[in-house]
């Protein structure tokens, strides 16, 4: 195999594969990238067996074929080459020879045969705008459990459905058992061929955001699935992930219905207040207390070990006093993820789940964040 490619193209596509390539080498071939030249394109494939990516770039192919080289080493080297064209040629012993200007390099590669085969993508079942998907992911990914043991919560649920007579709805939900992030868009996706309800693993979500950003604001994501895999196609790039087994919890039941006490606050104010008070919260539990009273919200904590701190934030609140405990980290996660100027707390009492929402969004967009209180 022999081809010539623009350095910038190769660096860009290799960069996308870095998030997928296995870092801790248990199986050596997984730290390699598969290079395949055919027609007038070079395609690059990387996988860690959970997640796989296939992307491509234009190339002048002199001789078709394929081979693998260590992905990180290749990127690190190519990045340092001068801009312009470079030529890569695989030798008989699986080594790759790279020529660029006056640079000559031979890299140890591995046989293509041992590289895992990625499944082919079936017909797409749904389509959605890439920026929409990216925004849904960034607003939910932080609520995914980081622990490996409860794997059904190690991802977010994506639902695309079309109720009869209504516009199609796309929903993404994530939870770690203590809090839940829910985002819903109405009408921004074309009607799906069939209803979608899939669990997307956390690592895949992070890669999707990168791919969506790389692809630009106009691009679309095609979604498909087979029994074991999910496929996301963005332009010429394809991300394949193994499906998460198991059931996502019944989140509808968790969304509060009768949280009638509403306090509206300035997002920056409450965020700064929580961040400062949290410095004096217990290091492990991060517990702070919030006292909602007329026109004012008091964020406070006191600990015999570290000291005490309190902040007053003006708010529009007229309900009865509610003194409720929360994990400060959970609140900060949300307050950092929203961009609106104002947020609202919706409460029932100090024992029931609290809900946070950004204020002033169109009816077609709903972002809800449910946090369970702490008993302190």
């Amino acid at each position, binding site marked *: 195999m022999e081809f010539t490619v623009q350095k910038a193209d190769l660096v860009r596509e290799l960069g996308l594969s870095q998030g997928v390539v296995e870092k801790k080498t248990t199986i050596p071939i997984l730290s390699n990238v598969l290079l395949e030249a055919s027609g007038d394109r070079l395609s690059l494939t990387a996988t860690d067996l959970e997640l796989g990516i296939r992307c491509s770039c234009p190339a002048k192919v002199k001789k078709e074929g394929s081979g693998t080289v260590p992905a990180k080493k290749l990127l690190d080297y190519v990045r340092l080459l001068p801009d312009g064209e470079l030529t890569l040629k695989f030798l008989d012993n699986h080594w790759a020879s790279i020529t660029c200007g006056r640079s000559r390099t031979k890299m140890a590669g591995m046989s293509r045969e041992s590289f895992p085969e990625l499944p082919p993508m079936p017909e797409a079942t749904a389509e959605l705008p890439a920026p929409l998907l990216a925004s849904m992911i960034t607003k939910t990914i932080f609520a995914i*459990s980081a*622990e*490996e*043991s*409860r794997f059904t*919560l190690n991802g977010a649920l994506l639902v695309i459905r079309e109720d009869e007579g209504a516009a199609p709805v796309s929903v993404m939900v994530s*939870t*770690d*058992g*203590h*809090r*839940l992030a829910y985002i819903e868009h109405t009408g921004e996706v074309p009607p799906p061929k069939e209803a979608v309800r899939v669990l997307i693993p956390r690592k895949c979500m992070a890669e999707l955001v990168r791919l969506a950003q790389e692809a630009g604001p106009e691009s679309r994501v095609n979604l498909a699935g087979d029994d074991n895999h999910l496929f996301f196609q963005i332009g010429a790039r394809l991300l394949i992930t193994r499906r998460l087994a198991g059931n996502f*919890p*019944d989140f509808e*039941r*968790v969304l509060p219905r009768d949280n009638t006490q509403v306090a509206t606050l300035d997002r920056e104010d409450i965020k700064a207040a929580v961040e400062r008070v949290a410095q004096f919260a*217990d290091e*492990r*539990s*991060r*517990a702070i207390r919030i006292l909602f009273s007329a026109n004012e919200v008091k964020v406070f904590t006191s600990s015999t070990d570290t000291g005490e701190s309190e902040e007053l934030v003006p708010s529009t609140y007229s309900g009865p006093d509610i003194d409720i*405990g929360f*994990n400060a980290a959970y609140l900060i996660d949300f307050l950092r993820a929203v961009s609106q100027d104002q947020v609202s707390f919706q409460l029932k009492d100090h*024992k029931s*789940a609290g809900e946070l929402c950004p204020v002033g969004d169109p009816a077609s967009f709903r972002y809800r964040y*449910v946090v*369970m*209180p*702490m*008993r*302190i």
Partner: protein
Amino acid sequence: MGRIRVLPDQVANKIAAGEVVERPASVVKELLENALDAGSTEVRIEVEAGGRRLIRVADNGCGMLRDDALLAFERHATSKLRDVKDLLAIATLGFRGEALPSIASVSRLQLETRSPEEDTGTRIEIAGGRLLRCDEAALPGGTSITVRDLFFNVPARRKFLRTEQTELAHVASLATHYSLAHHDKSFELWSDGGELLRVTPAGTLKERVYQVFGSQVVEDLVEMTGAEKHLAIPADRDGDEPERRVFHLRGFLSQPQVQKANRNSIYIFVNSRLIRDRLLMHAITAAYHNLIPPGSFPFALLFLECDCEEVDVNVHPSKTEVRFRHQSFVHDFVRDAMREQLLESRPAPVFSPPPSPQRAAALPYSEFTQMLIDQASAPAMPEPVLRESPPPAPRLDFSAPPIEVKPLRLRVPDTHGAFPADAIPASGASLESLVDLRPLGQIRESFIVASAADGLWIIDQHVAHERILFEQILKERAAGRIEVQALLLPIVIQLTPEQQVRYARIEEELRACGFDTEPFGNRTVAIKAAPAACSAADLETVLFEILENAEPEARSMSMDDIRRAIAASLACRAAIKINTRLDQTKMEWLLRELAATDYPMSCPHGRPIALRYGMHEILKAFHRI
């Protein structure tokens, strides 16, 4: 003719012998106790062929008058009891009046005794329970009993005897125990002409422990100088003064890094009587709870002294069991006294330069056994020697400190200058010096290496954090301020029937510790809230672990134990794992917090936290001292 007959004495004695005289060691025990009861200060034991051929116990006690000597071989004849009231307060080791006739009925026995009140002594010979002769003889004061051919007339018993070495080991271990209990007396044990144990009267118990076990074991021990507790017993009737009973406990405890696989290294003496008692055994295990791993045992040498009325030794003929009148009081007293002592001393484990983690694994048994094996492998016949030479030093000379063999070293020219004298601190540093530790870095992102004035320390980051959290959780629990995080969706877990029983028992305690759980139908439990420090992902595991831990010793576990078990599970889950990189501030924080804990030497599961490579060892290793 009637079928029921009264058994002749000889038969009755043989039956009694079955209970009392099981093996040579039991004979030694009975004779030794008699010797000690007779107020002797020197006891000499000789055995041949593991005690099968000969057992001789000679003392310098009060001896017996001739008439008494003859009477002693009657069943239930004793000088130690007079009426039934005495049974309630037994102050002597023996009291049943069964031992001598029992032993006499299964062996050829010779008794030599002289009381100071008589001018001449008495020699009595009995074989198989029949009196052969009784003579007047010229004898020194005291009593000497020689038992030959044990079980010569009971072939069944003889067959069940183990090898000579095993029997000898039993005798040896017995003699050791009694020598520990009576540190002011001298003991000698000879086997086939070789000396096995020889201890001279020692001023303190510590000296005796040193004589018997040697310096290495003593280093690993914590001395309990004496704990006392009074128990007030309410008067039976009005007008009577309420009685006060004094319990006194002293002895030696091992540091937590000494861990034995069995209970053989626990010696309990109640009023100088060696006993095996489940109650006290449990108290000891409870004292080491959360200090050493479950399933391992400490080395302990405990002397419990109390009023004779408080303890009933008349439980079994072999007198190895006792019953306490106030069981739970004794149990708690022993547990608390030991625990306090352990907390107070805070000893730090050290790197032992020669790697010998199991060196005291089965003392004294193993050393004796080893010695016996050595003896067995020695040539049976001594080699003829022309010149008289001093006998080789016995391998185990308890009375003398071990001879230090200094390796021959070439003198190294001192080119680096002398080491400042004050750089060598007094050894025996405790974990108190954790306070001025300076972390240097991590080994494999798992162990913190730190330097201090007294040497180099290695700290296991996971267990260190575990200990910090454990105490924190217990404190929070005690203060009732537990931070509880409610769960979005209750976690429903399925229990086995066993776990269901456990759960029902500890439900309240779980709630107090922050687990809001609710029975949810048949053998199903819904967790609605959990301690904030416990991540939702770990909840199920933690809860099952708690239920699992509550199981093995279900009946004996107190609520306090359960509380500690819960805290231990939570702490273990929440603690920093190994293979975690820590930055400098985090390490400093960890060491500071560790130093502030009550018990920074082992984690709640009993693993050691910190190891010290003392300045002394470092200097030694570099041949500077």
